[in-house]
């Protein structure tokens, strides 16, 4: 078939490249290779990251800070469920089970320089990027001081210009092309920033994911595609979402590395994201990282997961709780002991209590402000 393509136009065979020309358009690639009938096979598979061992080279104070963020995310999440079930919080989205992967990823990035494009499960990542427990509670209870949206968005739609957390919406995967554009601008402006776009395995089915991988690969952009694969898109199991073993296998088709990592292993995720960020900063382009996690709670406070998954399955995954695993690791390393754990937990409880009180006492937005900020001048 291909041997018949001998009557291709001259331009196609010779190429548009003209060494005499100074025009930019003539210096760009844009010529076909000579016709050929030989093609090389490609291998489509992701790498699997090794489990972490030891302290991953991190000092004790960093490890403790990671633990503190993980435990704070869990405690805030649990408090929001209580507030929902007691009728105080109208709606919540839970990230329980994802926190280990998120804390590992967040600590591997340069906070203050890099950009986070979160989705609604990224409570722990948003905390690592600088949102406070009080910020989160203000949003959960839709109060005026909510810095993420002033009470306009549903809870869990994180965002803060000051913290480089990009405002997010509810249709899944729409933030992924934003990350690509942010990475393009970062490279053009030479800020050295990396953008990380987070989404679930459900979001990986969207065109925005595929279009973004393609564009980012073409331009070798400093972006990390971070898939938090928790096995369920609301109720639909991963087997009915993708036909391949790993979402990260997709990366090879776009021409960049894909890495699968145990998302309950905080330090393994840390290492993978650190490597991906380094690649990105060196101009080597994007990486697709798939962290295998599990969603311990229903999709949201309006969901009932007993209608589509076996409670024993949840129980089995809870045995691999990233919080418990990380705490055990730090105890093994001698970084944490009973006394320190008790003190951190007590501090966190106080912090969550304080955040809840502050939000409950904060005013709702004034109804007269509902039509503000539609445009710059209105």
């Amino acid at each position, binding site marked *: 078939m291909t041997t018949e393509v001998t009557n291709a136009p001259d331009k196609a065979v010779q190429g548009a490249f003209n060494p005499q020309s100074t025009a930019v358009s003539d210096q760009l690639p844009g010529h076909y290779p000579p016709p050929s009938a030989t093609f090389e096979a490609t291998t489509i598979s992701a790498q699997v990251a090794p489990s972490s061992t030891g302290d991953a080279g991190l000092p004790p104070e960093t490890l403790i800070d990671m633990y503190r963020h993980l435990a704070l995310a869990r405690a805030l999440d649990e408090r929001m469920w209580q507030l929902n079930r007691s009728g105080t919080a109208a709606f919540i989205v839970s990230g329980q089970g994802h926190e280990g992967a998120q804390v590992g990823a967040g600590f591997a990035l340069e906070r203050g320089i890099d950009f986070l494009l979160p989705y609604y499960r990224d409570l722990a990542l948003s905390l690592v990027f600088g949102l406070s427990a009080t910020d989160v509670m203000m949003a959960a209870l839709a109060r005026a001081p909510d810095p993420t*949206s002033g009470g306009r968005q549903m809870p869990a739609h994180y965002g803060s*210009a000051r913290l480089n957390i990009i405002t997010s*919406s509810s249709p899944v995967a729409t933030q992924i092309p934003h990350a*690509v554009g942010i990475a393009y601008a970062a490279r053009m402006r030479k800020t050295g920033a990396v953008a990380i776009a987070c989404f679930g395995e459900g979001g990986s089915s969207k065109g*925005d994911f595929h279009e973004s991988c*393609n*564009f980012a690969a073409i331009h070798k952009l400093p972006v990390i595609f971070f898939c938090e694969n928790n096995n369920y898109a609301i109720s639909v199991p991963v087997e009915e979402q993708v036909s391949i073993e790993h979402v990260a296998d997709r990366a090879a088709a776009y021409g960049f590395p894909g890495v699968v990592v145990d998302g309950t292993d905080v330090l393994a995720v840390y290492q993978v994201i650190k490597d991906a960020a380094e690649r990105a900063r060196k101009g080597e382009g994007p990486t697709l990282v798939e962290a295998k996690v599990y969603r311990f709670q229903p999709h949201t406070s309006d969901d009932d997961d007993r209608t589509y998954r076996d409670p024993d399955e949840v129980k089995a995954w809870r045995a691999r709780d990233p919080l418990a695993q990380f705490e055990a690791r730090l105890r093994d390393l001698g970084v944490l002991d009973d006394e320190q754990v008790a003190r951190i937990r007590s501090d966190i409880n106080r912090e969550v209590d304080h955040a809840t009180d502050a939000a409950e006492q904060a005013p709702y937005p004034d109804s007269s402000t509902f039509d503000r900020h539609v*445009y710059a001048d209105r």
Partner: protein
Amino acid sequence: MAQLQDQVTMAPATAVAEREDAPQKSFIDAIHDTLADEMRADDRIVLLGEDVGRRGGVFRVTAGLLDEFGPERVIDTPLAESCIIGSAIGMALNGLRPIAEIQFLDFIHSAMDQIMSEAAKIRYRSNNDFACPLVIRVPFGGGVHGALYHSQSIEAMFVHTPGLRVLAPAFPADAAGLLRAAIRGDDPVLFLEHKKMYRAIKGPVPTGDFEAPIGKARVVQEGTDVTIIAYGMMVHEALKAVSVVAEETGVSVELIDLRSLKPLDEDCLVQSAKKTGKVLVVTEANEACSVASEVAATVGEEAFAYLDAPVMRLAAPDVPAMPFSPPLEHAFLVDAEKIGAALRRLISY
């Protein structure tokens, strides 16, 4: 009709008579030159879209810009409209001033999530923490044998979306002035370029750094007996119709070019309706929930007591899109003849 055809290029010159000593430019050159001028003045501006680089756009609007500004600022994108708009939003969120081109308005549907749910809502949903300074340039409209998928006028969907601005200039000077205002603004703008006007419409364009006001209509021709409100190519079709019907009937017609579909210049429309008492609104889009419907409702609500006839809409029929074969295209498309017929009906009401 031959006599009417000649007036296509004549009309804009008289319409912007106050600037008739300015250099004449085609509609396409007015847009091209404004893009180039703004890119020279502001290195945050990047262009992205399908074929905008090497080819200079399928209509050649961006011809030469790749050579002048380089491939980092003039990006030939993959054929993925959602990613064109989505990545442009990201650029806007990180300090650039992107100008995205969607090759035809007919191809914009796959980017609707990014335009309507993202770009339009970023400022509001973040309580003013983020802004999205983004211009989306799009050729639209029919009458060029573009058939169902190179002719659509679906601007009403965007007019229905708070957070966006929607512009559709009819004259080269307004194309330049409004595009400059859009680029310099801090909000997302859909900038509609009627593809039939690119080379058919010429007119004076002031030199130098001028902006046209977003949200202000242009009174193309003052009159006292009946008002026609139109935009895009329909302004030029209306001009042809008016010259014939006015001569034939002696009726004084006021013609208003909306220029800005969102926001609408309600004051201008209502004042004209109060003055003439009869209003014909023309669009080449489908009628239901169209810009013409919005104008008619506005005039009906604000000028009811002054009206001498129901507000009349003239729009494309309730048919999915423009057919290809010339007689079918002619039957679908609103033109000077149909506007003339509607105008006579309204005059005799």
